[in-house]
């Protein structure tokens, strides 16, 4: 099911992407090519610049340098054209949570230019696919963290974009829902859609994604197909090795002599 990397068209192309926050360089020359129909995972330790990179890809954060093109459209030169083909799930940003789930889906769809009937149909489908039927009439502010994630994920898909950019889509989502979501995403990819997601779950990335990039301190240390990157070992081993290795747990013997 992995796409043919030589022939598939490049959907998302990132080159030389740079972002500084004051003294600190959060993203330092990130370059990636994501091919059509691929399930692309981005992994990295905390503070590696994953969210910053994805924000610049989706047009939420202005880069200090570099280009992002989606279907040959430059995201920062022609934002409204590029954004039409991107679906976004940001991490740690608020939703319009005084709306009910149904209203939020409707709002997202309408802003994306869908007509009322289409939005209603799709909202219903998405709600049942994500197991949110019972929650649609409640305020999103009253949702649990996992439900909030799911409704945001549903809102990201409602306009059937060619590219889905999902930042930590499975964080605090229960395993059953996560399995459902993965199945939905796999079907979407099989039909020619492209998914870029970031995650801390190495097992999940290794199992689900066909390509992966490891970002550490704002730089891409390895990228390619999952098999290439993990080079025989597990993705987790390779990741820990690239991210600076395990810290030796020395000098912690006091932890083993309990204080009472």
């Amino acid at each position, binding site marked *: 099911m992995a796409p043919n990397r030589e022939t598939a068209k490049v959907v998302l192309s990132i080159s030389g992407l740079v972002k500084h926050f004051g003294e600190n360089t959060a993203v330092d020359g990130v370059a990636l090519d994501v091919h059509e129909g691929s399930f692309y995972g981005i992994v990295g330790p905390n503070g590696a610049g994953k969210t910053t990179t994805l924000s610049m890809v989706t047009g939420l954060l202005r880069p200090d340098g570099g280009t992002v093109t989606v279907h040959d459209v430059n995201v920062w030169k022609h934002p409204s054209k590029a954004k039409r083909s991107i679906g976004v799930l*940001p991490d740690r940003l*608020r939703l319009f*949570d005084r709306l009910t789930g149904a*209203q939020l889906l*409707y*709002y997202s769809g*309408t802003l994306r230019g869908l007509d009322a009937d289409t939005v209603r149909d799709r909202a219903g489908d998405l709600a049942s696919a994500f197991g949110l039927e019972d929650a649609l*009439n*409640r*305020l999103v502010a009253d949702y649990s963290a996992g439900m909030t994630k799911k409704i945001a994920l549903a809102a990201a898909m409602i306009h059937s974009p060619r590219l889905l950019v999902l930042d930590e889509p499975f964080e605090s989502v229960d395993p059953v829902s996560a399995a459902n979501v993965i199945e939905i995403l796999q079907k979407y990819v099989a039909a020619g859609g492209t998914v870029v997601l970031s995650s801390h779950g190495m097992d999940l990335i290794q199992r689900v994604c066909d390509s992966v990039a490891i970002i550490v301190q704002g730089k891409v240390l390895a990228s390619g197909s999952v098999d290439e990157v993990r080079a025989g070992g597990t993705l987790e081993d390779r990741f820990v090795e690239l991210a600076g290795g395990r810290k030796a747990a020395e000098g912690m013997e006091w932890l083993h002599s309990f204080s009472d």
Partner: protein
Amino acid sequence: MVAQFLGLKLRLMANTFRRSPWQVFGLVIGLLYGMFLAVFVVLALLGARFVGDVELIRNILVVLGALVMLGFVLLPLIFGVDDTLDPRRFSLYGIPNLHLASNLALAALIGTPSLVLTVCSLATVVTWSRNFGTTLIALVCAVIVVLTCVLSARVTTSIAAFLLSTRRAREFSGAIGILVLVMLSPVIVLLATVNWARDGVTVIANIESWLSWTPLGAMWAVPGDAAAGAWGVALIKLLIALGFLGLLWLGWMALVAKMLVTPHREAQAKAYAGLGWFSRVPAGATAAIAARCLTYWGRDARYWVSLVMIPLVPVVMVVALLIAGAPGHYIALLPLPVMCLFLGWMIHNDLAYDSTAIWLHLASGTHGIADRIGRIVPVVLIGIPLIAVGSIVTVYVYGDWVVLPSVIGLSAAVLLIGIGLSSISSAVFPYPASKPGDSAFSQPQNLGASAALVQSISFFAVIVLSAPIIVFMALGLFVSPEWLIGTPIAAGIIGVGVLVAGVYLGGWVFDRRAPELMAFATRND
């Protein structure tokens, strides 16, 4: 342990200076203001030492002191402070309850309000240093005053943080705040009608006579009573003050113990059937944004609290003007334009209210014009009936139907100018607003001086731009009625012109600066 807690509080205070220059500027202004206040009060109290009329000084001290105490009790409840030393933050350290409660209370002594209070209450010792006995009892009472006020503030802060932990309860606290304001306004009117030059001393004496027997005033009255020679009364009031302090202490201990073992309260969710406003508007992004804004105006406390304040402002204004002796005939013309002024101004920071949720508008490539127009729809929908009904009432009270077109013109123009300027300022100069889900009265901690600047400029710019219309109206009223023809014409030109220009310019800025607006929202979340 005490040293650690005091150190923690000092560190927290010091860290507030490690922010952006504007925030430090605001903080320094606050500190200077506190110092100025303290110096002023201390000088007054020192001067009072040499005034012979002991009872007058006691009466004034009791009334003002009770107000100070009330401030310490109520302000945390209404404004819902962000409590950096919430007892629950220490729940995992296993500190014995007595230690935790006393250390937190001691740490609360550090802070601008507490310091100003301490300095001022120590100055009262000088005021009452008439002889050894009064000096001693004044010193005791000064300590009681500081402990009572600070502990009261601690207790209400914790109660506020504790009870208002759910979203709905926080919104409810906004309603309480309005209720308090509404209830206070007749008191203010009553106080404003007193002829202070003639009856002031008697009124204060009357208030003191019952206030000094309550926990609010007792601690302030004791040294004064002693100085007046009424030692028996002084001792009884001292007992009241001490008893109240003891109860406060027990209450605080119990509250800390209770809070440590109680998790956050869970709210009950309410169901809303259907799509609400969304099913009542036409298709398209602009209409959807309008529906979203209308929904928020109804559900979000930050909007409806501001909305409820709008009719209160002209009431207070009219009462003040009437008391000041302005002619009632012309005052009738004021409330409607003033309400329109505030209504248009309400959305001057609308974008900041969305906080980071605004990402959806960015990610979907929503056009700035659609965003701007959608946001002004609720204001227009409220403004039309307000002006329709308000202008008829205004002219009826005024008594001359000749002014009707002018009243409608001026009010509509003020509203449209306000909307137009708000459309620009919310995209160009957003400043930190209270976050979604917070109490409508809570202000963000890092509210810099820039906020005050934006608020005043966007407010007075409306008045400046409406000046030609006001001039036509004034000439019509006071010189010759022919001038009144100019009012609706000028209103139409300026109002529509500013509205169109504002929406267009605001939309253009939004399109260009959307990522910067996003960065602003992320910084302040």
